[in-house]
């Protein structure tokens, strides 16, 4: 698409339309995120421009509020435990799925990926109706189990994609040198696919960290997470402190994006060596 002098009028026109409409769409995607950041520094209690002075008061409100603190704690507990379980189960499954085509391979793949397809509300309602009689609703355990189920497909997909670039002869070499399957996995396979496992884990964490439908139905008042707290905040009394939390979450997702990009580049480098 480099500029060439021999463009016809028609081509110039289309190029202008393409850039014009794309810039508008980029603005549509980014402006909402950028517009709320200054509002979190508003000196006054309103969510309108112009700002009434600049202050950090809403950040102070959020950081000193025990409700937000406990919401953050709950999000971190549920997110990290379900990420841990999902990463272990998902990595094992991805390795198994890559190792051999056993009977029912396609069906197993469909089942493993299905939590991603089925609308979250159905997962939540199914879980609620089935586990409420067993006392698992209103507990960390219930929330963690449900979030693990929702997060696990992302681990399987990411690790499977990484394994496609994994050179099996490395495992064979280890085996021929006398290493058992466990030792081979731990010392040869795992270090090579580690960036993929890490991005899978990040996907899993992001899934749990942003999930609110399951939390609405399954969690009790003791397990209100960050998105849950934001949900009631937006619904009941939206104020600049919500914008402060939102700004912090935008910073968080930026860091997440950067980390994933670093992992992806690392992964490609590893693949380059393996080939």
């Amino acid at each position, binding site marked *: 698409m480099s500029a060439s002098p021999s463009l016809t009028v028609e081509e110039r026109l289309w190029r202008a339309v393409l850039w014009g409409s794309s810039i508008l769409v980029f603005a549509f995607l980014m402006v909402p995120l950028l517009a709320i950041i200054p509002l979190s520094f508003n000196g006054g209690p309103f969510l309108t421009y112009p700002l009434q002075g600049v202050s950090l008061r809403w950040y102070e409100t959020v950081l000193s509020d025990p409700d937000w603190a406990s919401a953050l704690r709950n999000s971190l507990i549920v997110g990290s435990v379900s990420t841990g379980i999902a990463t272990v189960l998902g990595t094992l499954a991805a390795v198994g*799925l890559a190792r051999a085509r056993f009977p029912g391979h396609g069906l197993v793949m469909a089942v493993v990926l299905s939590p991603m397809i089925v609308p979250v509300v159905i997962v939540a309602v199914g879980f609620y109706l089935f586990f409420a009689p067993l006392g698992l609703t209103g507990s960390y355990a219930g929330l963690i189990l449900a979030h693990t189920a929702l997060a696990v497909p992302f681990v399987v997909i990411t690790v499977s994609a990484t394994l496609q670039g994994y050179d099996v002869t490395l495992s064979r070499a280890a085996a021929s040198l006398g290493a058992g399957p466990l030792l081979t996995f731990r010392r040869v396979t795992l270090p090579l696919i580690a960036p993929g496992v890490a991005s899978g884990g990040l996907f899993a964490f992001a899934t749990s960290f942003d999930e609110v439908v399951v939390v609405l139905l399954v969690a009790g008042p003791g397990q209100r997470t960050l998105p849950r707290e934001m*949900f009631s905040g937006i619904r009941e009394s939206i104020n600049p402190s919500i914008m402060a939390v939102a700004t912090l979450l935008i910073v968080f997702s930026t860091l997440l*994006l950067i980390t994933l990009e670093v992992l992806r580049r690392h992964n490609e480098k590893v693949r380059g060596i393996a080939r």
Partner: protein
Amino acid sequence: MSQPLTLKARLHRAERRRKLGAFALVAPLLLFLLVTFLVPIADMMRRAVHDPELSQVWPRVCGAIDTWTDRAHLPGESVFAALAADIQESHKARTLATAARRLNYDAAGARSLVFGTARALPSRASSWTETLIAIDERWANPEVWAAVARASGPLTSFFLLQAVDLERSPTGGLRAAPPDESIYVDVLTRTFVVAFSVTGLCLLLGFPVAYLLANLPDRLAYPLMILVLLPFWTSLLVRTAAWVVLLQDKGLVNEFLMTLGLIDDPLRLIFNRVGVVIAMTHVLLPFLILPLYSVMKGIKPVYMRAARSLGAPPTVAFVRIYLPQTLPGIGAGTLLTFILALGYYITPALVGGASDQMLSYFIAFYTSDTVNWGMAAALGTVLLAATLILYSVYSRLVGHGQVKPA
């Protein structure tokens, strides 16, 4: 002679052991999903057709009503007697409310009928038929008895029929439900209309961006890609909150339009359909751009060059040569967006008004607010069926594993 056979058998055994080992690695996850995901959803679907509530509290009449075959006339005295005994029993056991609630789903006013009858019921009567009808003449209406028969379980089509605004007539045929109960076809239509509008808008907005990103040199495309990926990775709640702020009466959008002089009074942009469609389009746009981009990235420029060198004007070449090659990407992107939009709950709940709530909202509402689990299950089954049908088309198109729901 036996040597090659043994080798073959040993290879065979080794191969089988390898497959078994591979399956053993997948087994823990399968077991986990079976317990936390598959069985609960299957159990939810069971609730859509399984209806033991009434037969648990009124076992006698639910058994006796099977003898009622001539649906045009009233059931016999034995059925009336069974009902009287059940009402007395459940009144004492304080389970009458369960029966009244279940009957009220089907026959409006049944709650007052049941409670009124229970209060006036004598402990003995020579004819229960006459006694019950004397207490409340609605017991002389075969429609009420038909409702009892439909609720007598253990299987019922009541909830699934109600989910599409149908009901059984007393003679067992299908008919439209009364207008004040017919809300679900409207909800279904609305869900599909919103999903369809959002998908259309996403395609309209996403196509030029995907095209631009796919045809720019990488050093320009990568920084621009961040503008798509950052919103994609930002919390759904953050993006929804942003739209609540932007679209309010004194929000940025209205202020901007008023400054430009395009409008004099603020537009109503939030708590209505407009807000829902704008916010959902924003949330789902990356899901359309990314698959479309990856398909466009794979389209070789030689075909376009060939068409141009053979004299096709740029517009003609684009429509006839380029566009057909993007169809798999358009198909995958729109289907994915549509599937995700169908299940949306949070964004309509926060940005929409009462008449913009989609199917998911009602499923959650019947689960936690009114405890009508049969209805929640029936609507859930409808949503699940729609999703799975569309997904099977999608996976034909692209294969498994290219999705990230919000």
